[in-house]
């Protein structure tokens, strides 16, 4: 009998559940795009190498290959053992070292894996009391910087117009010269410009240096500076303190322009705490609630239960209103009341329901007194931080959700330095790290001022814009090559220890400061060791070595967290703040945001980060000028207009794509603010405040490596010292040109089905199993009948799928004739391990650390913007971001998506060469050597999780792109043209010296795939096998072969700061993954296909406050689901909805068949 596959649900009524604006517009281009596995043109070679050339070159190479048959012999390889083997060294066994990545406001404690002396993967240090093993994208990607072939590889001195390389000795002499000069005049004329960090050793050296050279100046500059948190708390409490937030104990959180899950410092720690408050086993559990007031659409905003759009300049007014409401409701101290009444913000929040939004939010915060938290972001001025601290005090949050830790007073600012430089009182300027020539406020004109210094010494990781000014460029060491120390946000001391000798003899910041100070210890190790024994020792010298060793081993010093300081509000604070006028269509407000990929530009040459899709916009390789849909309409920049314009210009879709152009073209616009302007592509971002323009920093570098070259535009060009984070009075004017933007957003669209399942907490209380009560699974009868499945602890009736199950037979009524085959299948299933994964959508914030971790662990190549435009990105793990609701105020849901390791895998049944098959432990494995690249598997994958190597991405030149302008109809198109892999005609990186550096970073336990091979998530099979082998070695002559829970996990699960990904053995009843799979919220994506995925999801729960003006009864996605007439997941029902009409017939048929 011919099996009738289950009918897919009808497209919804009204395109509401959408992934991009093109989908809202339902343009014909979008339809065509969505219906194809790979977009048109993706499979075509649009390369300058013509076919004729190609054939010519190929035949030449075959001819050459004929001589000597050298290809038939295996190359002779050598084994080179040590002359003297170091003790405890075992070749082939990776070693893990504890270290930390220093950041501006803390550090990320890491365990770094080293294969034969080369670091290959950074993982979070789970022992650390504050971070517990969480990491962020930067920590995951930092490894690539170590092996960046464009990093600075030498120190040089400027001589005349050129540079001449200098030896380490010459550098030492030069630094000693500066030291002697400073000693002679007490440091007059010496200025140090530093980046912000938390190193106690650096603080100690600087203190000693300024003591020795009292006239020397120490300045700190960060383009995105978290110090305002300290400044705000210091102003509020009258002593230098830094706020430290414990989000795990907060029940109600109000974030005012505070992207604490994304762009704020220590977001990884915040995410872990926040996610703890979102982990719910049953509907009666208490869950936190997040209120967000913001202008941009941030990661935090996408996770909000209630979100209010306000221009950043208005937010201070909303905060003032919140303060007065809190004062009213708590009847708190006079100091707070007087602060509130003297606060310089307007008490009017905005139009419509904004006012009641803020007051109801205040009431909820007060109701959760002592367990609430008000956060203000780095973009807001000090007065806003003062207010937030005061509100937290009034709410009784100090000691529970916020603590105040001692902080160091502020160093001089870059403004002070420019003042001194312009006055001509600086002779030696020492710039340690940073890149002020690129990112200093444009009105200060750093480059001109710096030239007044006679001698500019610059310690830099890259030869960049600032090196262009320097007289001495010193080559900086990577943190994985350096000794150092840092304190994490809670004050715990962590070591920065090297895993490898500096590859290019780089220096560390500590060494340079020590040499300029003329101190006796100049080696970074000695400096750090001295600091340790001075400040943290306190133990007899005999034990000190042991304590130090333990410290290095653990990667943190236990109980070294800072002791909270008792604080009280300063009375009679005089606060001054003038809010600019509200933005309008002609006077837009520009917001400068820290970029989720490149930070402030420091990761500009990091391919993993450049290609990491922005968590919100999903754009790769560049920044955009983001505006709201309303503003775009007012300015005439609507995206639907762009599409129709292209068709009017006579560009057929296929033609446009063949000429290297993407589907979506974007207007190029010029932002003009305060007489300065910059040009970039416009992007309509749902959820943005109206009349606000958001630009990310860090792109448009002029002097950078080949990866970062020509990516995006430089937003620093319009950023001034008076308005560093948002500026008013901007205008947008289209230039008439069109640009291509590469986004991973449209790819593999899953239109309108309940892929992400959401409910409110109230809904969940009403219907415990709402997650499985959606789509066809709700009452899926099984088109071809049902059969009994014994899973752990229960027996259930499952529908039969249309694909064969690798392990289970469908019972005697169907497979009665299959006897021996059925037996064989039983044997093929392992009784020891069955791997599975559960992803909690309620904790996932969409930060993308897993994406980069996967790339690092699995040797996933970067492909470049040009290839992403064609839909050829290679990420094994992507994060789908769905919008629901209106374009103005959408709800957003993120969903990590990778190969789900279906038991009834559709890909396996279509592979003609058995390259993708099931293994006995539930993995859907890929044998790369068998793959012939038919791509049938990818076509048949319902989750679009497979990636194809269209080119030899690993061998390709990693040049970013050349930008060129072409004329097309009446419109000029600015396109990028990346250096494609050119086969034998192109540069083979394998033979270049560069490859020697690049290959050091590869994971030796994962094959590097070549052209023409399909690949996908392997569940980190190399880690599974390693764990199994270690267990078997341990077991020896015993049967103890089951890998215990917690021995290992996948790269994504390890990296996840939210602990949203759980991986483990489903056969171990104590494993977390087995427990989570039994959760009420557990569901399978496209479960009705009966693919039986091994990766399942836990439905997301939203926690709206019913009293809020924007309260919602159903999560927007669920509302759209019910509006589309697919039934109500909150009611028990039996086959009564539209899409099930067909299903109920099949149901009846199956029942009849089952009865036979």
């Amino acid at each position, binding site marked *: 009998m011919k099996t009738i596959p289950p009918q897919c649900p009808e497209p919804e009524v009204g395109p509401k559940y959408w992934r991009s604006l093109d989908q809202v517009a339902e343009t014909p281009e979008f339809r065509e795009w969505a219906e194809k596995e790979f977009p048109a043109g993706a499979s075509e070679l649009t390369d300058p190498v013509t076919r004729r050339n190609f054939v010519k070159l190929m035949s030449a190479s075959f001819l050459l290959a004929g001589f000597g048959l050298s290809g038939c012999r*295996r190359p*002779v*390889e*050598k*084994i*080179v*053992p*040590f*002359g*003297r*083997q170091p003790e405890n060294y*075992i*070749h*082939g*066994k990776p070693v893990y070292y504890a270290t930390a990545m220093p950041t501006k406001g803390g550090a990320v404690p890491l365990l770094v894996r080293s294969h034969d002396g080369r670091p290959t993967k950074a993982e979070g240090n789970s022992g650390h009391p504050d971070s517990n093993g969480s990491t962020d994208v930067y920590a995951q990607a930092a490894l690539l910087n170590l092996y960046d072939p464009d990093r600075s590889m030498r120190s040089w001195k400027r001589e005349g117009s050129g540079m001449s390389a200098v030896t380490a000795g010459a550098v030492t002499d030069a630094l000693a010269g500066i030291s002697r000069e400073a000693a002679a005049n007490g440091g007059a004329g010496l200025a140090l410009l530093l980046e912000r960090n938390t190193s106690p050793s650096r603080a100690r050296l600087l203190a000693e240096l300024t003591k020795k050279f009292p006239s020397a100046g120490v300045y700190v500059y960060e383009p995105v500076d978290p110090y305002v948190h300290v400044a705000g708390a210091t102003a509020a409490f009258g002593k230098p303190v830094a706020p430290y937030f414990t989000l795990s104990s907060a029940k109600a959180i109000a974030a005012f322009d505070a992207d604490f899950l994304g762009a704020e410092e220590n977001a990884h720690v915040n995410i872990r705490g926040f996610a703890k408050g979102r982990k719910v086993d049953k509907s009666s559990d208490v869950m936190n609630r997040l209120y967000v007031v913001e202008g941009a659409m941030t990661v935090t905003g996408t996770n909000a239960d209630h979100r209010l759009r306000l221009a950043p300049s208005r937010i201070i007014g909303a905060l003032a209103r919140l303060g007065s409401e809190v004062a009213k409701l708590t009847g708190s101290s006079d100091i707070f009341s007087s602060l509130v009444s003297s606060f310089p913000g307007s008490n009017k929040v905005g139009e419509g329901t904004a006012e009641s939004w803020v007051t109801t939010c205040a009431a909820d915060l007060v109701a959760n007194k002592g367990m609430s938290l008000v956060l203000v972001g780095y973009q807001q001025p000090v007065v806003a931080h003062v207010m937030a601290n005061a509100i937290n005090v009034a709410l009784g949050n100090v000691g529970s959700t916020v603590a105040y830790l001692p902080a160091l007073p502020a160093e001089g600012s870059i403004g002070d330095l420019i003042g001194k430089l312009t006055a001509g009182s600086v002779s030696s300027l020492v710039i340690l790290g940073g890149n002020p020539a690129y990112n200093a406020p444009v009105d200060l004109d750093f480059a001109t001022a710096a030239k007044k210094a006679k001698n500019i010494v610059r310690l830099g990781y890259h030869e960049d814009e600032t090196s262009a000014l320097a007289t001495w460029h010193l080559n900086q060491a990577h943190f994985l090559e350096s000794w150092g120390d840092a304190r994490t946000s809670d004050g715990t001391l962590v070591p920065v220890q090297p895993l490898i000798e500096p590859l290019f003899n780089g220096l560390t910041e500590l060494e340079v400061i020590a040499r300029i100070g003329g101190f006796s210890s100049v080696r970074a190790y000695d400096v750090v060791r001295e600091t340790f024994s001075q400040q943290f020792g306190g133990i007899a010298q005999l034990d000190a070595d042991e304590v130090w060793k333990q410290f290095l081993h653990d990667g943190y010093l236990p109980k070294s967290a800072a002791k909270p300081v008792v604080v009280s509000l300063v009375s009679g604070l005089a606060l001054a703040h003038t809010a600019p006028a509200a933005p309008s269509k002609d006077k837009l407000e520009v917001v400068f945001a820290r970029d989720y990929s490149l930070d402030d530009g420091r990761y500009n040459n990091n391919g993993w980060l450049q290609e990491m899709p922005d968590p919100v916009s999903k754009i790769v390789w560049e920044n955009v000028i983001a505006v709201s849909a309303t503003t775009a309409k007012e300015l005439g920049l609507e995206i639907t207009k762009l599409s129709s314009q292209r068709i009017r210009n006579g560009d057929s879709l296929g033609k446009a794509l063949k000429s290297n152009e993407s589907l979506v073209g974007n207007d190029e616009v010029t932002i003009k603010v305060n007489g300065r302007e910059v040009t970039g592509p416009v992007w309509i971002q749902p959820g943005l405040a109206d009349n606000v323009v958001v630009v990310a920093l860090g792109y448009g570098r002029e002097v950078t490596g080949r990866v970062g070259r020509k990516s995006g535009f430089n937003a620093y060009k319009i950023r001034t010292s008076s308005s560093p984070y948002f500026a008013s009075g901007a205008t947008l004017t289209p230039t008439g040109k069109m640009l291509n933007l590469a986004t991973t957003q449209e790819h593999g669209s899953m239109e309108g089905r309940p892929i992400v399942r959401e409910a409110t907490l109230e809904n969940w209380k009403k219907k415990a199993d709402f997650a499985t009560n959606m789509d066809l699974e709700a009452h899926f009868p099984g088109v071809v009948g049902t059969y009994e499945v014994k899973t752990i602890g229960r027996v259930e009736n499952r529908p039969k799928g249309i694909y064969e199950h690798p392990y289970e037979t469908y019972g005697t009524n169907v497979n009665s004739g299959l006897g021996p085959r059925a037996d064989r299948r039983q044997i093929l299933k*392992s009784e*020891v391990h069955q791997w599975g994964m559960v992803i909690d959508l309620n904790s996932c914030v969409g930060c993308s650390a897993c994406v980069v971790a996967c790339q690092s662990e699995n040797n996933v190549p970067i492909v470049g913007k040009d290839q992403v435009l064609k839909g050829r990105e290679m990420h094994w793990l992507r994060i789908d971001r769905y919008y629901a609701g209106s374009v103005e105020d959408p709800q957003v849901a993120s969903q990590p998506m990778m190969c789900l390791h279906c038991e009834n895998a559709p890909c396996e049944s279509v592979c003609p060469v058995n390259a993708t*098959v099931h*293994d*006995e*432990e539930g*993995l859907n*494995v*890929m*044998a*790369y*050597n068998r793959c012939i690249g038919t791509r049938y598997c990818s076509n048949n994958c319902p989750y679009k999780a497979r990636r194809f190597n269209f080119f030899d991405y690993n061998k390709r030149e990693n040049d970013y792109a050349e930008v060129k302008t072409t004329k097309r109809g009446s419109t000029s198109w600015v396109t990028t043209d990346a250096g494609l892999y050119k086969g034998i005609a192109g540069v083979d990186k394998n033979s270049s010296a560069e490859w020697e550096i690049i290959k050091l970073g590869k994971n030796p*336990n*994962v*094959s590097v795939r070549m052209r023409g091979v399909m690949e996908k998530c*392997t569940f980190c*099979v*190399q880690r*599974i*096998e390693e764990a199994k*082998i270690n267990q*078997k*070695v341990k*077991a*020896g*002559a*015993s*049967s103890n*072969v089951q890998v215990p829970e917690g021995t290992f996990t996948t790269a994504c699960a390890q990296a996840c700061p939210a602990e949203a990904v759980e991986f483990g053995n489903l056969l171990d009843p104590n494993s977390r993954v087995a427990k989570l799979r039994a959760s009420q919220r557990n569901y399978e994506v496209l479960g009705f296909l009966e693919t039986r995925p091994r990766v399942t999801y836990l439905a997301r729960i939203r926690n709206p406050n019913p009293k809020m003006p924007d309260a919602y009864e159903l999560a927007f996605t669920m509302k759209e689901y019910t509006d589309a007439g697919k039934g109500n997941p909150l009611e028990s029902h039996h086959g009564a909805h539209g899409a099930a009409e067909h299903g109920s017939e099949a149901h009846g048929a199956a029942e009849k068949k089952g009865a036979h």
Partner: protein
Amino acid sequence: MSDIFPKWTNSLPLKVGIGAALLGTFALGAVGYYFTPKYTRVGYKPTQPVAFSHDIHANQLQIDCRYCHNNVDKSWFSNVPAANTCMNCHSIVLKESPKLELVRQSYTTSKPIEWVQIHKVPDYVYFNHSVHVSRGISCVECHGQINHMDEVYHAKPLSMSFCVDCHRNPELALRDPKDVYNLDLKVDAEKQLKSGLKLAHDWKVNASQNCSACHR
């Protein structure tokens, strides 16, 4: 016609036929051997920089394999000893021998000796020594009677079918852990099968035949 073709040509067609048949058989045989997993590199015996004899060390002197290859039960890689391991004995025994000149040099200068690799699986195969020797598979299964080799040569094909054969029937190779490094152990087939089956059952031996066992 005999004027044109000499007499011996009469038998030429037959000779050519036989010759061609022989050649064909030979070619078939050659292809059958060299191009199938039977050969791979069996017999490969490169000249090593130092004339080290396994026969002297492992057989005559009865030094345990793990004295030199001390990481074989710890890592995927069975290490070739560093010069300092050699010098443990050779700083006393044969300390002047010209054959050991390279070893002494390597020890004093720390410059490695470049041994020619003989046993090698392709890069996409992730073979692991430790799991095999820890679970009762002797060196002899893949390396042959290496303890009797004066010069090491490739004794077994180490092809995929060679691996899979054993993974299908591990009971034919499983032995008591104490005999793993006893390369001269001879067990008759019936006994081996009986004890192998018992060990496989007791230790829950599951020699995986899945792709993921070796390919990652």
